[in-house]
């Protein structure tokens, strides 16, 4: 190709690698800080290399109650996992059923149901936070897994995506199934679900990240440490110190908080990119 210039290619690679290093710097510093003890951390600027504490800081936060949290990080990781899985699986389950009803059945008020679900796309939970909190409190859902999960399931992104996908299913498929005597449940279980596995995987990745990374909602609805999530716990750790921030503990916790979602994205990248492009475009 005439228009390519070798010098520019090399410069591009150089710039990209530089950007990559800059991108990774915050995490690198977190890893090195997490391997120091408080005293060696506070001898100067943040250390660029590992300290002597190795994995001790991680072992400590995972097995012993941390600072003002009143619980160990293992418990927080468990809570975050339950919340993220609950949101991802719950959203996918109710969305598949609702989209199935809207696409494959004719019934009165079908359009109205569709619009009622569609409207929920417009308002994020942050805007209606006060009254949603009140509803959850009235239903006795504070400090419970149900309270962490259910209110965040109430949006229709997933329903929408499954609807789009179902609309592309060839009508012959349904007719053939009906000729063979398959009822609605059979058709869903034996034909539609196997066809949607890629979409389900893609949505699972996105919804898992969404659930894991939630902040405002778990902050409000959990006041006791047994249901607190790991992402929310970080702020308490930061403000817990009366004099010096225990950065080694904060960083060990922060790394544990980002490990599961980053692992999910790295392992399922293929689905994730597909899910992103489908979900938002």
């Amino acid at each position: 190709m005439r228009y390519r210039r070798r010098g520019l290619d090399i410069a591009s690679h150089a710039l990209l690698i530089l950007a990559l290093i800059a991108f990774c710097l915050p995490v690198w510093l977190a890893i090195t800080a997490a391997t120091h003890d408080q005293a060696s951390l506070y001898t100067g600027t943040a250390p660029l290399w590992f300290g002597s504490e190795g994995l001790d800081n991680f072992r400590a936060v995972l097995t012993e109650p941390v600072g003002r949290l009143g619980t160990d990080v293992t418990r927080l990781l468990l809570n975050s996992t339950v919340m993220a899985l609950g949101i991802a699986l719950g959203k996918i389950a109710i969305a598949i059923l609702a989209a199935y009803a809207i696409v494959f059945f004719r019934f009165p008020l079908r359009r109205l149901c569709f619009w009622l679900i569609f409207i929920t796309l417009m308002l994020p939970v942050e805007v209606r936070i006060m009254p949603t909190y009140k509803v959850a409190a009235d239903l006795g859902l504070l400090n419970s897994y149900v309270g962490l999960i259910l209110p965040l399931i109430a949006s229709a992104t997933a329903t929408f995506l499954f609807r789009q996908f179902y609309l592309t299913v060839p009508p012959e498929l349904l007719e053939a199934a009906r000729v063979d005597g398959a009822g609605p449940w059979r058709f869903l279980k034996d034909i539609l679900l196997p066809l949607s596995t890629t979409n389900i995987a893609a949505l699972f990745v996105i919804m898992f990240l969404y659930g894991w990374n939630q902040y405002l909602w778990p902050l409000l609805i959990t006041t006791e440490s047994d249901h607190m999530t790991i992402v929310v716990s970080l702020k308490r750790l930061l403000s817990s110190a009366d004099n010096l921030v225990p950065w080694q503990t904060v960083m060990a916790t922060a790394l544990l908080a980002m490990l599961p979602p980053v692992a999910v994205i790295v392992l399922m990248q293929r689905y994730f990119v597909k899910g992103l492009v489908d979900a938002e475009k």
Partner: protein
Amino acid sequence: MATFQRHRVTPWLLLAPQLAVVAIFFFWPAAQAMLQAFYVEDPFGLGRTFVAFENFARVLASAEYYRALGITVTFSAGVALGAMALALLLAVLADRVIKGAGAYKALLIWPYAVAPAVAGVLWGFMLDPELGLISAGLGALDIDWNHQLNGGQAMALVVMASIWKQMSYNFVFFLAGLQAIPRSLLEAAAIDGAGPWRRFWTITFPLLSPTSFFLLVMNSVYAFFETFGTIDATTAGGPGGATRTLVYKVFEDGFIGYDLGSSAAQSVLLMGLVGLLTLLQFRYLERRVQY
């Protein structure tokens, strides 16, 4: 579309879970928010009085509110433009080097998975006045960094952390957009003597406008709502309200100040603002965008 005809109950059974959740946790609270905005409630929940538009008048007359609005605009513009410009630059570079574009994508994508609050904490450490690597570097340049005292620096901190997290998302979309541009078009321009700079501005950039427009909307929404965690975990709206965005103010007035009416009125105004922004973006921007 072929459908199941003689099933009356089945569709309702299928829809029931979704409709129930949406009714209880979306429509009911949304309606409550609207109603609440017209009442003054005492903080102990003992009673409330209808005050019509008084809450709105009070909010719209307060200098605090306009300050938060200004802060939101600065913050969102900084995040959206910063994250998009950086991502576009990197995507153009990655698109140039045909070998390795996929690898760069794989290596740059992971910050998307990091929670906004965690991103804030990581950047808070790098800029910690005592320990921070960057703040030490700035100190060497005679810049005294302390985002706990300096409002402008606190804003810079939350903007940087938010950009860091959002960039990879933009990068994925820009790279996809760039790779969809036919090579022949660029080659033809090159044969006509257009240099890389000129090719970018006359061919690539206009063809990317749908992607850019879409990303502008998504980035604004991100900056508005999802960055709550970043702000709360690092600056908590401070110092002196320098990073108190509109969403943060709704939270503060409602949950810390227990001024429910004002908080609800602000929520309703925020809904209106989000709607207006979306509308404006579509009306005025979309026309200049070539699809």
